[in-house]
Structures are given as C-alpha cells and as structure tokens.
C-alpha cells in the first residue's frame, strides 16, 4: 500500500476548455430538445391557425370602401428565431399580428367569440352559467409576442401597440418562458381608466385555451394573469394596466352582485357564459349579452351622433343573389334587394348595408322574428366588420317593445321555480 497521491491542481483553471465545449454543446442540445418539445406541445394544441379554406381571397379586393384601414405596427421587429426553424402553424398567431389591412381585419374579426343577445332565458342559468358585468368600452383582442403587445378591435384594426408585462409583451429579459411564446387575451378597453379588462383568455404562453371550458379558462385567467405583473399600475415597460373582473356563478346572489355590485368600471350590460362551453369563434349561443337601462347606457342602439334613432336600425350583408342576411352561421335572411336598384346604386355583394325598420313591419311568427319591409338608409360605416346578428336584431326589437327584465332573469333562477321539464342540449363542440 503505497502513499496516496495528494497533488492538487496548481495554477490551473478547474475546468478544461474541452470540457466546457462539451458542456456547452450538451446545454445547447438540452435547450433545443426542450424547445422542440415545447413546440410540439404548442403546435398540437393551437387552433390559432389560418385554415386555408376559410381564408378570404386576398386579391382582388372587391369592395372599394374596404381599403386597409389601419396602420402597420410602427416598428416591425425582426423575428428572433429562424422562420424555417419553426413550423408555420406555430407562428400563425404571431404572423397574424403582422397581417395588414383587410386580411388582418378579417382574420382577427374571426377569432373573437361573439355572444348572442339574450332573447330568452336559457335553462339552468344558475347551474351552468357564469355572469359578470361587461365593462363599457371597445372589445379587443390583445396579443403579446416578440417583445410587444398589440391590441386589435373587433374589426381587426390596431387600437394600441405598447409594451406590457404580459409574457413576451415587452423587450425585457423575460426568464419565465421561451422567447417565442405568446399570449392572446379577449379584452375590453375601458377608456376612463385606460385599463384593459380581460374577459377571457384564449392563449397563454403559447398554450391554446380554445378547447378548454369557460370554467377552466376563467380559473386560468384568474390564477395566471396576476403572476405576470400585468395587473400592476402602468410603468415604463407596461403602458396599460390589465385587470380581471369579478365573475359570478349565475345563482341568485351572483346575478344580484353582477347587476348591482360596484365595479371600478362603467357597466355595459351583463355577460353570461356557459361554464362548459369552449372558446368558440364567431357567434355563439353559449355566451350571451343582456342589457337594460339600469345596467347600460347603450341599451338601445345609438347612431353615430349618439342619438337613439326613431326607428330601429339593422345592418345586413348583401349577398350575391341580392339577399340581405345577418352575420349568423348559417345566415338568416331578412329581405332581398331588387336587382335594378343594386345596379344603379353600385352596391356589391359583401357590402354591409344599414336599414331602418318600421315597427309595424316586424312580425313574430312561431317565436321567430320576421321583417316585412326594410328601408335602405346607407352603406354602413366602413369600420364595421359584420352585419348584425339575428339575436341582436331580435333583442333590439324586444328592447323597444317588451324587454327581458332583470326580474325575469331573477325569476328564472328562483329555486322553487326551477323548471326541470326542459332538457338542455348544450352543444359542447368538443
């Protein structure tokens, strides 16, 4: 047993550069493996793609007024990663945020879930639904990616481009996630306090929440948003405050709280969300909007000057065959335009047209609303993306005659009045 060698490294760095190279290579590989796992996970779950079939023809643009209406984000930053390194589907949300003009408008317009107007009370309101007071303001889609945050209105036009504390929402070193992750929030921008009230969460750190239930999305929204600091007051890297809003089970107490409770924002009616429904883009009966005079200053539609017109007005889309339809899928036909008039007035299919409706020309038949006579007013404001929905026309009509009152809603959820005879056919769209 010889003495043991006790020499220690002398004037030498403890680690060799070769070892360092090995370790750096391993680190790079581990990082890239983790990136590709993340990408696979996200890819798989993202519905936020541009389905080719749905894509509107990008040229030629048939509608003259429909010129691009918004400006390209001021400084389009170069992509931080190689475009070919990431599958294109994955980039679509990010790419879409850079689409221009009509394409962006159409694309974003199609991404929002649009509540129908409540024309009758859905069954099991207390069991299957949430209720919350809708903030008054502009509904918009907020996308944070690549170090910036962009908000877009329902029609796709950019409202703000700004830095925020949302993941990847500003050019800070964000250690909390990969550089290419993005978030998409469904918000209402409330002018008076310059706050984005988040009413739904669509994508979070690149994970799609489209096919999650509202119950889960709201849970996620409430647990994740605050973690980022996005609810903090504005700061250098955070231009606008984000805020969650109180969401209630639509039982007696919840409904009262949403209806009469004090909130920091101006209310614009109530929103009802079915707990089990996924985030479905376009009009859906699984999210409902309801208003009355107490809860909203916009109970009856106003015109561009803010006045309530004497006659109800509707906006309908002109089809190839001259039919005038709502924005529903499938569309509801409310009338037809005369070919000669069309020819003279230079109107074309796809145009959104405003009509006045005389009370006496409306008929309720088997619970369905029919309009016998539409009076053409003008082409609609160019910033509109959609015709009115059937439920909106109905709600506005009812509002003028026999509105659905808060008492009706409350009555429907009185336990003793619970009506179990009707079965709910909730369409899960799963």
């Amino acid at each position, binding site marked *: *047993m010889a*003495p*043991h060698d*006790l*020499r*220690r490294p*002398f*004037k030498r*760095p403890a680690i*060799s*550069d*070769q070892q360092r*190279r*090995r370790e*750096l*290579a*391993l680190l*790079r*590989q581990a990082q*890239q*493996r983790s990136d*590709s*796992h993340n990408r*696979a*996970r996200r890819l*798989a*779950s993202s519905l936020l793609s541009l389905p080719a079939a749905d894509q509107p023809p990008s040229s030629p643009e048939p509608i003259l007024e429909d010129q691009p209406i918004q400006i390209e984000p001021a400084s389009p930053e*170069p*992509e931080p990663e*190689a475009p*070919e*390194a990431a599958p294109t589907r994955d980039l679509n949300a990010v790419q879409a945020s850079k689409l221009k003009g009509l394409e962006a408008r159409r694309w974003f317009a199609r991404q929002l879930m649009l509540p129908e107007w409540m024309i009758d009370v859905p069954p099991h309101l207390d069991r299957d639904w949430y209720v919350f007071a809708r903030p008054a303001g502009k509904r918009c889609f907020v996308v944070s990616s690549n170090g910036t945050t962009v908000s877009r209105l329902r029609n796709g036009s950019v409202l703000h481009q700004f830095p925020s504390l949302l993941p990847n929402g500003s050019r800070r070193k964000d*250690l*909390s*996630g990969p550089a290419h992750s993005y978030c998409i929030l469904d918000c209402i921008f409330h002018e008076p306090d310059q706050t984005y009230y988040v009413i739904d969460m669509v994508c*979070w*750190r690149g*994970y799609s*929440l489209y*096919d*999650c*239930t509202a119950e*889960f999305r709201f849970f*996620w929204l409430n647990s*994740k948003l605050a973690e980022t600091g996005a609810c903090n007051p504005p700061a250098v890297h955070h231009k606008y405050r984000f805020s969650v809003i109180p969401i209630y089970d639509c039982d007696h107490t919840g409904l009262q709280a949403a209806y009469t409770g004090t909130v920091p924002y101006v209310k614009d009616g109530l929103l009802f969300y079915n707990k*089990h429904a*996924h985030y479905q883009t376009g009009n859906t009966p699984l999210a409902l909007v309801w208003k009355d005079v107490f809860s909203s200053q916009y109970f009856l539609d106003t015109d561009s000057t803010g006045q309530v017109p004497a006659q109800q007005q509707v906006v309908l889309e002109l089809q190839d065959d001259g039919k005038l339809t709502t924005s529903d899928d499938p569309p509801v036909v409310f009338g037809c335009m005369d070919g000669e008039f069309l020819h003279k007035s230079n109107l074309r299919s796809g145009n959104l047209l405003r009509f006045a409706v005389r009370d006496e020309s409306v008929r309720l038949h088997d619970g369905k609303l029919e309009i016998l006579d539409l009076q053409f007013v003008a082409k609609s404001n160019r910033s509109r993306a959609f015709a009115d929905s059937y439920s909106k026309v109905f709600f506005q009509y009812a509002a003028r005659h026999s509105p659905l009152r808060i008492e009706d809603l409350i009555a429907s959820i009185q336990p003793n009045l619970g009506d179990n005879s009707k079965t709910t056919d909730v369409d*899960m769209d*799963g």
Partner: protein
Amino acid sequence: MEVTQILLNAQSVDGSIRKHAEESLKQFQEQNIPAFLLSLSSELANNEKPVDSRKLAGLILKNALDAKEQHRKNELVQRWLSLDIGVKAQIKAYLLQTLSSPVPDARSTASQVIAKIAGIELPQKQWPELIGSLLSNVHQLQPHVKQATLETLGYLCEEVSPQVVDQDQVNKILTAVVQGMNASEGSTDVRLAATRALYNALGFAQANFSNDMERDYIMRVVCEATLSPVVKIRQAAFECLVAISSTYYEKLASYMQDIFNITAKAVREDEEPVALQAIEFWSSICDEEIDILDDYGGDFTADSDVPCFYFIKQALPALVPMLLEMLLKQEEDQDQDEGAWNLAMAGGTCLGLVARTVGDDVVPLVMPFIEENLIKPDWRQREAATYAFGSILEGPSPDKLIPIVNVALNFMLSALMKDPNNHVKDTTAWTLGRIFEFLHGSTMETRIITKENCQQILTVLLQSMKDDPNVAEKACGALYFLAQGYEDVGLASPLSPYFQEIIQALLTVTHREDAGESRLRTAAYETLNEVVRCSTDETAPIVMQLVPVIMMELHQTLEAQKLSSDEREKQNELQGLLCGCLQVIIQKLGASETTKYAFLQYADQIMDLFLRVFACRNATVHEEAMLAIGALAYATGANFVKYMQGFYPYLEMGLQNFEEYQVCAITVGVVGDLCRALEDKVLPFCDGIMTQLLKDLSSNQLHRSVKPPIFSCFGDIALAIGENFEKYLIYAMPMLQSAAELSAHAASADDEMLEYTNQLRNGILEAYSGILQGFKNSPKTQLLLPYAPHVLQFLDTLYSEKDMDDTVMKTAIGVLGDLADTLGSHAGPLINRSVSSKDFLEECLSSDDHLIKESADWAKLAISRAIAG
C-alpha cells in the same frame, strides 16, 4: 515445460522467449482455467521457487480476478464464482499459507490476491471463515506473519464495502489494526502495515467513531504514530488524519488543538513527504467546511447534515503565517515541471482554500506579507508575495478586494513586463487571470477595468504572450478571463477595438516553435475560443474572417504524410484544437440569423474537412469533429441532408465506440441535433441509427453514463419522424419499460447513484415525451394506448419515491401532459385511475421552479382538455 520456467521466461529480456512464454501461459489459461489458477497459486505458495516466478504467478492470479473495465470485471467475477468449490478451497489455502512465507514479495502479492477473492466472495456470503482465520494470525508471534496479515486486512477493507462485514468482525479488525499501530508493538514493519491498514479500515469505523472511548483511543494511537521515529509511519499516520478529517469531520472538535500542534510541527520541521501530508490535512478541512458552508447557502440557520465547526476560522491566526512561510520554499523550475509538488505549492494551494473558507478574514492576515515581500530583491519573496495575493482573490468579498486590486493592478502589469524572474512573471500573469476571473464581469458593481486601463492591460498581455512558454500560457489564461468578463456586455464590448489585434496575437502564439511546451498552444486556442464566444455583433465580421484561416490550418494538418507515431499524436491533438475552435465559431455565427447565412457559404468545405479528419481515426479528434458537426447540423438545418451520405458511416462508427464512451455519448447527442435539423428527412437513416442505439443499450460494455442520452435520443427521433416511429415501438418500448422499472427505485443512499438514476429517469421520460408528441394527431395514436398504464405507473412510482430532482420532476409532469394531449379522451379515465397524478400535478403547480411550474401548467391544460373531451 514446467510452470516456473514459463513464468521466468515471461520476464526474460529476450523478446522472443518472452513472447513464447506469454503464448504458453495464454494457451494454458484457455485450455484449463481451474488447473491454471491452481498451479499459479501453488507456485506462489512454494517457498522453494524463485521469487520472480512467484511474484508473476500472484500477479497473473490477481488479474484473473479483476479488471478495470466493468464488463470484463463482471465476467471474471462470474468465472471465479463458477469454479469448482474444491479448486477454490485449494487456491485459498495456498494463498493463506503464503502469508507466512519468509519472502516479503510473496506475502505481499498473496495478500492482494486474498483481498480480491474476498471482494468477490464476501458479498455472496462465501468464505465466512476468512476474517476469523486472518485475525487468529495476528496473534502469532512472528512479526512477518503479523505484518502480512495486517496488510491483507488493509487490502480487504479497500476491496470490500463496509456493509458486507458485520459489526462484530469490524470491531475485531479495528482492534487488531489499532493494536498493531500501538507503540508497544515492537516491529516497525508491523506498525507500518497496521497504520496503512487503518487508512483503508477507517471507512468501516462509523460505529466506533461514534463511541467516545473508542474514538479517543483510535485518535490517540494515530496521533502517537505521527511522532514515530520512522518517516514512513509518520507519513502513513498523517494520511490517516487526512482521511479522518474528511470522513469524521464532525467528530474532530476535541482533537483540533492537538492536531494543530502536531501538524504545525510537522509542516515546519519534518521531512517533505510528511510535511506535505500535514498541509493536506488543513486543505482537507477547508474542503469540508467549504462544502458545508455551500450547503448553508449563506443562510446560517439552514439545516445541514453536518454543522460547521469553523475550525479554519479559529486556527486562522496561526495557520496563515505557517502557510505564508511555506510559500517561500519554492523550487527552481517548478513552473516548467508538470509533476512538481512541493511545500510552496501545497502551502499556496491551502492558502487559496483557506481564503475560500473564511472570506474577508484572511485579507488582513495576508496583506502585510504581500506588502513586505513584493519589492524584495530575492525573487522568492516577490513570487511568494504575488502568489499569496493571487491565492486570496477567491473567497473574500469584492468590496474588500477591489480597493486593493485597484492599487495593485498597475504594479502587476509592470511586473509582468519588467520583472527579471520567470517565476515571478508566471505567478504575476496567473494572478492577473485570477483578478479577471473573480473581480471582473457584468455582475460586479465596481469596475476594475475601465476605458483608461483596458488598452494598457491588453498591451501587456499581448506582449507577455511572446514571453517564455510558461509565462505566455498564463497570459493567455488571463486574456481568457478578461474576455469572459465581457460575455454579456451587449453590443459595444470594450474589447471590440482591439479584437483584430487579439485574434492575430493568439494565432501568432499557436504558430510559435515552442508552443508545444507548457501546453501553450492549447491555452492559445482555448483563449481564442473564449474570445470568439464573447464577441459581439460588431466584431462578427472578424470572426467570419477567422473561418477560412482555421479551415486552412486544419487543411494543412491533413496534408502531412508518413508521420511517426509521435508526429501523428501531435497532428491529432492539433486537429482536435482546430475542430474545437471551428465548433465554437459555428455555434457563435450560427446563433444569429445575420451571420448564419454568410457563414453557411463555408459549410460544404468545412464538412469536407471534418470528414477527412474522421478518416484519420483518432478518438479525441473524432470527438471534437463530432461535436463540431452537431453544431454545424444545427446551423445548417434541413440542408444538412446533403452531407448525410458521406457522414453516416462515421456516425455509425461513433455510435459503436463502446471503448471511448465520451465519443459514443457525443455521437448520440449529434443524432439528436440531426433529428432537429433534418426532421422527417432523417427517416432514411433511422433504421441504422435505431439498430445501433438498441445495440448500445443492450451492451454491458457501454459506460452507463451513455444510456440516459440514448433514451432521450429515442424521443428526438420519434419527434422528428412522427408516426414512422411505429416500427421501432416494439423494440424501444420494452427497453424503456424495463429501464423504467429499474430506475423507479434508486434504492441507494449513494448520492452519485441517485444522480445517475435521475439522469436515467429523465432520459426515459424524454423518450416517452418525444414518442407521445411524435404520434400526436396521427391515426396511429392508439398504438400507444397499451403502453399508457405503464407510463402512468412509472410516474406514480417516481412520485411516491420522493427522490426526483427538479429536472426529472419537470420532465415527468410534462409526460403526464403529453399523455393526455396525445391520447385525448382515452387518457382521461387512465389518469383518473392513477394513484397520484393529481397530487403530483398539484405539487408541481405550486413549485418554486418556474420550469416545473410551466410544465405543470401545460399538463393541467392538456388534462383538462382530455377530460372535457
């Protein structure tokens, strides 16, 4: 021919006789292994035979029982165990008999062989009488038998793990050993053998060290042995103290005063081998306290398994002066001598450890020595002062050091230029490197390098690179850390204006005639690599210009013809350095879109060079070129497919390289790079790759550390080729399952084993993750369903074992999400049925580790979707 003669012939100076004898031995061994071993042991035991044949017989016997390589070792163990019991008994009897031989070499050889057999048999509960019969020998009067027996016990303790020997026998062994060390033992040989045996037996003495009386006794005997008149005994006794300091640190408090006195005396007065051990004792205490304080993590209330006794802090006022004295005992030319180790080096190293242990407190004790000696005419004093300064730069706070460094920096720069002594310059350059390593960088609040002195520092370092090789090498090292400090400086690096000049100077160093000395060439390339790694966008064009230069250098190494083996080794080494440099450049330029495309113009030529380097076939080059190719594949992306035909044979070779497992491991990593670069274009090569990987996994020759990355690689492949992985499922899944079962329970308190187990788990989980994600959205998803219960069971077990590290936890919870994501509604009921998925997910969701949390978020989402269906 009889065995004796063959054994003697095998040691003949005549090559042909030797070769013939070796052949005969080999033949004998192959024909009849029992007879062969029996005749060797009989030869060893026979006192009539010449010592040389006996020694060789013992040596061959020993080598027939053990090998370095694990798989070979296992084979030999199995072979021994399967021998006829009578033969084994006879061999053992011969060996025990040899312990009484009057021939010391025969005894010593026999004791090693006995220990090897014990190492095989005791864990199998065989040879139970061995220890008893050895212990009975100890009571024999003949000193040489006693000595051989103690030596055997020492070797035995080295070979056998403590768990195998019951406490009663441990007590008896320790009693015998400690009695053998006692001053009352008359024979010096016996005392030396006993002291050396104790060194190995210390690992068995846990229980005894917990008993105050027994520990006191052992410590007293060891301390007495440090005062023995025999140097070798003193040295062995200090070795025991060093071993005790690391094994029983927490039991030392009451002995420290005595030990300090003993070591201080030995350091100052004893012969060098003893003094070195005495210094090592303090270095070892520093190691322990650094580890403990590291565990505390600056939080002194935190629980640590072992409390810190602050021995170094208490000994500081006496310890530091002693170590400073040692610094003055330099040898001439120690900086040129690779193998040198002397009092000055040991003292300086210990001082550095002391500084790391106590931090600020060391500074006032060392500063007067530095100030006094730094400008003395004797080079030893200047060198010692500089070394002392360099030693205390790691540990104390920057607040404490920076004011001193600001004063000293100019002096150091001027000494590096002007000091007439090579050692002083060597240590000065080293000290500058330490200054840059520990006190320069973006995390420092106060900058020691400013716009004003940056140029001066660079001028001195570049000039110093023309000095003697040992000094130039240290100057390169200093530049390495200077560059590293600007790693994340952003766009405008202060080095940018000098970038071209620095690169040129480093290239010039690599071409120096004497660059082979003091590893100067290696240091120059390493520094070049670091300079490239830390370069910024503004200097990217200069890095780009470096590409053809390094390519040309590599090309030149390939031109050389008919090299001697020595020249070939040098060529291989240089190719390794150049491939390493290219790897760093590729990774740098490939990481940014702007530089990547410009760089890729060289891709064809570089790949061609790498393939030619492969053709030279050498492990290190192979490895470096392989690493570089991984980086190239990543930069090239899908276009790499055009090189695959030429590269594939080498890839396969790399995967087959069991012996050099590093090469194999790196090649496995490159397969991952290829999968990510080529995606589904890697498919045509997958049959071959999977075959090799499966072979690797089934091989017991392959180093275990390569297995986890191979599993991860399955995941990479599956992710790249998607449902095409189908045909490999029947091979890969059973392997993953059995590895999962093995790795589910670490079943060992051994940290190293647990770490490996966790690496294995992570590899398996990454494989599951990749496979699940790869099959996503495929109509063949249902093929994975049968495997899902096992995956969930694996996750359950991992959760219940509670010994996952963070990486495993993150990957594991991700797999749960992947399972839900890919199997959709099928996964819901399975997950609901699993024992702990829910708890596991909850735990991960509330983890502090954001990566775990992120994975858990994902899993929660995926599960909620799967359940919502």
